[in-house]
């Protein structure tokens, strides 16, 4: 399963998308995120399964007359 990874460097900053990873479950996804994206000292780090992200708008599809 693909997970998208988000992080911020300081409390109060906006969450920023920093990458993705493959993991079989939520628990390992959280561990892998910490190990894989450790180039910065984060304030917090989040993972979300890609298939749980809901597209709210897409410019290409809107220009083509909607999905």
């Amino acid at each position: 399963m693909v997970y998208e990874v988000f992080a911020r460097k300081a409390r109060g900053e906006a969450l920023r998308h920093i990458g993705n990873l493959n993991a079989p479950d939520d628990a390992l996804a959280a561990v892998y995120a910490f190990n894989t994206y450790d180039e910065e000292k984060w304030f917090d780090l989040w993972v979300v399964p890609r298939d749980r992200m809901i597209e709210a708008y897409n410019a290409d599809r809107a220009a083509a007359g909607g999905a």
Partner: protein
Amino acid sequence: MSAETTAEAQRADELEPEVRGAVRDLILVLADSKRLLGTRYAGWILGAPELEAGIAAASMAQDEWGHARLLYAMLKDFGEDPSVIEHERSAAEYRAMPVLDAPPDNWPEMVALNVLVDGALTVQLRAFRDSRYVPMRQRVEKLLEEEQFHTAHGAAWFRRLAGAPEAVVALRGAVEPMVPRVLRWFGADAGSALVLEDADVVDGQGSELRRRWLERVAPQLALLGEGLELAGLEPDFAGFDEARRRGQEDGDGPDEETIRRVRGDRNRAFLMD
């Protein structure tokens, strides 16, 4: 206990000689164990079941080697030369946990080491949290903080393997012989362990650390179900070498090839200092 014996020690030479020797031995046990555990993790940077697990293995290896380096450096306070300790000892002089002597054969065995052995070292390290020996007390929190991710990694993988019919047999096969060896590793309620507890250097020893460890790994062991066959929950300490934390059945030490790699023998000539 007198106020004198419980006074904080900023340096090793402020500890009573008997206590000082026991602290030095325990730091070396922890350092060697972490050096070897790091080497075992490193063996899976390539060949783990998924790329991310290899990255996690690399990260844990780096943590363990960092901890070992820090612990070896602490031995300076005891009059040791950390460079000699790190590079000039034979396999028979290593004090690493006996279950680390040989590399794990398969990934379930690595996961068992992650949960049981990394967990045991953390239990032993945590016993220094309120230590009267200040240099150790000051360093232990940082090490324990890094260990949280090793714990999370082990727990997540253990659950995954325990839930897979094709993996649970191998996992049980790795865990069953390992548990009694780790239990014995904590040692008897006697000798230098007793000295350390009485001197308020650690807050637990032997059977108390065994109890803490069993409590810690109970959720994982429970996943293996009723069929788990654990022999020797009450360790036999006949012939137990206290300084090396090694029983008669544990063998002499890590294999020489492992230690050659740990010491960095092959390219020692390039250590130009």
